[in-house]
């Protein structure tokens, strides 16, 4: 066992952290969230140039990473900085495309030139991975997909549907016939859209796609947890700074014993969250993957809510304001529980997996 990063990963972490600290401020983030695009194309290309996208793919796929710890490393930095770029879309859609043999598209994703997004959720489907009403008939897609990440910026949509041969993955370009988007901001500062398809021509890539989909949603869940871990680190750091500087009743808030003890509990939970992410990253691809992903997602759901609520509370009024940096991280942490299955969803899954 070894808990230190390899030299390569340490370099990637250092350069990502430097780059994102340099490019992201609370003001810059606020402006990006308020703008239509929802992220910064320049930052996205620079991230690609830094190799942050390539780190998510194996060497055989044109990248130089692709392991659980690579994914965790990249997303922890994005969460820590509160970055908004479509890295999650690159991870999921890129990963699926790579395994389906579309190296040409993957190369362009890694280069930051192409945005492909996966459309798999449906209204009333909650966290179900299987399409329920979207159908593929004679190479045409019809249905309604929910919460498609960064849809407005996407060049291609990878869509799950029920086809004649079961769960099918099909590719649709933006602007295709019968395709329409209703875009909106999400509570975590990202952008998403409802995607409606009406006999839209589509290119079938894979049938019987559920096992592949499950595998890549597991990777995405790890990424989401690492992102949350990063956001927790920042919330913790902001709160410590606030407690050290803000004076009340004649001394810094951080000298009040009751706040000290609550911070101590947060410090402990932050380490627990880090361990849960490490466990999930280390078990990615093993036969223990699902159990560790669900264990970790449950723990992250609990600890992230605690961190967000306590960070706001310990900040007092300033913690409630939109312009202060904490607002974004608090929302990002809490809303992560609504992605890829929440705390209770994964607890039930963990119990089911433990019983076997």
């Amino acid at each position: 066992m070894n808990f230190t990063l390899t030299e390569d990963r340490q370099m990637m972490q250092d350069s990502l952290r430097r780059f994102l600290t340099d490019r992201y401020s609370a003001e810059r983030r606020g402006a990006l969230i308020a703008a239509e695009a929802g992220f910064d194309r320049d930052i996205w290309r620079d991230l690609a140039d830094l190799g942050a996208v390539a780190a998510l793919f194996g060497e055989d796929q044109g990248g130089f990473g692709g392991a659980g710890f690579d994914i965790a490393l990249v997303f922890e930095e994005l969460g820590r900085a509160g970055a908004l770029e479509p890295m999650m879309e690159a991870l999921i859609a890129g990963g699926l495309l790579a395994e389906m043999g579309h190296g040409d598209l993957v190369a362009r994703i890694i280069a930051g030139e192409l945005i492909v997004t996966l459309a798999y959720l449906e209204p009333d489907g909650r966290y179900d991975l299987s399409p329920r009403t979207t159908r593929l008939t004679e190479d045409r897609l019809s249905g309604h997909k929910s919460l498609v990440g960064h849809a407005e910026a996407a060049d291609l949509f990878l869509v799950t549907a029920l086809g004649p041969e079961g769960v099918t993955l099909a590719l649709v370009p933006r602007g295709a016939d019968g395709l329409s988007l209703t875009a909106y901001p999400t509570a975590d500062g990202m952008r998403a859209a409802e995607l409606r398809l009406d006999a839209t021509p589509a290119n079938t890539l894979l049938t019987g796609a559920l096992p592949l989909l499950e595998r890549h949603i597991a990777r995405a869940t790890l990424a989401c947890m690492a992102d949350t871990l990063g956001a927790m680190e920042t919330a913790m750091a902001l709160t410590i700074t606030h407690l050290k500087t803000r004076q009340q009743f004649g001394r810094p808030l951080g000298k009040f014993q009751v706040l000290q003890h609550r911070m101590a509990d947060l410090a402990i939970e932050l380490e627990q969250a880090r361990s849960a992410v490490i466990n999930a990253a280390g078990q990615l691809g093993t036969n223990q993957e699902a159990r560790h992903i669900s264990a970790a997602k449950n723990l992250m759901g609990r600890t992230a809510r605690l961190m967000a609520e306590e960070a706001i509370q310990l900040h007092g009024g300033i913690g409630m304001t939109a312009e202060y940096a904490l607002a974004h991280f608090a929302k990002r942490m809490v809303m992560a529980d609504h992605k890829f299955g929440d705390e209770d969803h994964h607890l039930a899954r963990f119990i089911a997996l433990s019983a076997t």
Partner: protein
Amino acid sequence: MDLTYTAEETAFREEVRAFLAEHLPRDLSEKVRLGRPLSKQDHEAWHSILNGRGWLAGNWPKAFGGAEWTATERHIFEEETTRAHAPRIVPFGLTMLGPVLQHFGTKAQQEHFLPRILNGEHWWCQGYSEPGAGSDLASLKTRAVRDGDDYVVTGQKTWTTLGQYANWIFCLVRTDPTAKAQEGISFLLIDMASPGVTVRPIVLLDGGAEVNEVFFHDVRVPVANLVGEENKGWTYAKFLLTHERTNIAGIGFSNAGLETLKRIAHAERDGAGRLIDNPLFAARLARVEIDLMALSTTNLRILSAAARGQAPGADSSMLKVKGTVIRQEINDLTRRALGPMALPFVSEGLEGANDGIAPDYARPVTAQYFNNRKLSIFGGSNEVQRSIIAKQVLGL
């Protein structure tokens, strides 16, 4: 000890229910039910309807135009109005300032201000908090300097709820800069139309802007607007904080929120069944319902003891802490109930934007969860309340 309602109380409940059925405008109750923001006009319309019936000031003595209800009657009124999705009564004039003027105001102040609270001519807001002072009210810096028949007020107040609608503000100001901490503070009534008053909205993390900063630059306030004695404002502020918190437990809000939560949990699908049948979710919901059933009784016990002349004082701090914890828990469960559909984020400023995105009931939920994190911070943080309980109730 008797938990059943008397015949009079039951009759009163029927009367309230009938009144609401007849007089509560349908568009208003629909807005409240769906968690849509209410306009200033909405609030004023509802106040006016209640005032017409003599029910706007349930807690005021009859001599001042109030209904002088018992604790149980107030509880019944709150239960029925929240059940009917009536708007809440805006508390600043009615629950906060009114009783202060009734106890400490001059006859002239009472005669001038109290009727205008009832008829809606004055919309009050509260000027207590200041930037950098947090829950430490005694450290406030806004100064009022006597100059002839006026005070000249300079300083800044913050977290002023609905200050954008108000035309009057009651303020704590420092009149003796040499006195220590809680002395040298006075309680002043300020016309917000006075030259030198500026209001600036603060956007909260849910995207809404219901709180404000209020700036005072050399604002002249007639000495006649001083409540009680100069430098004794802290006494009146404490009176306001500890004696007039009849609704501090927020039972009505919680009951309404729980009803909404149940409706959503019945509507939401979870796998093959309904969310309400998920045992983990049902357990979370049941626990908070059980806590609320107990708090409802704790609330009535404390209020009825207060009505028998035992000062509620620090006991109301218990209601504040547990009441806000329960409300926040209900908000949390409602957010959870939505699953992925909690993600589309629609703040006040984006009215109509989520059409066709998620169920109608999903619309206000996430914003409300984040907005109500304020409950444990504003109005004396729960940390301050716990210290009050420890010292004043437990004697530690």
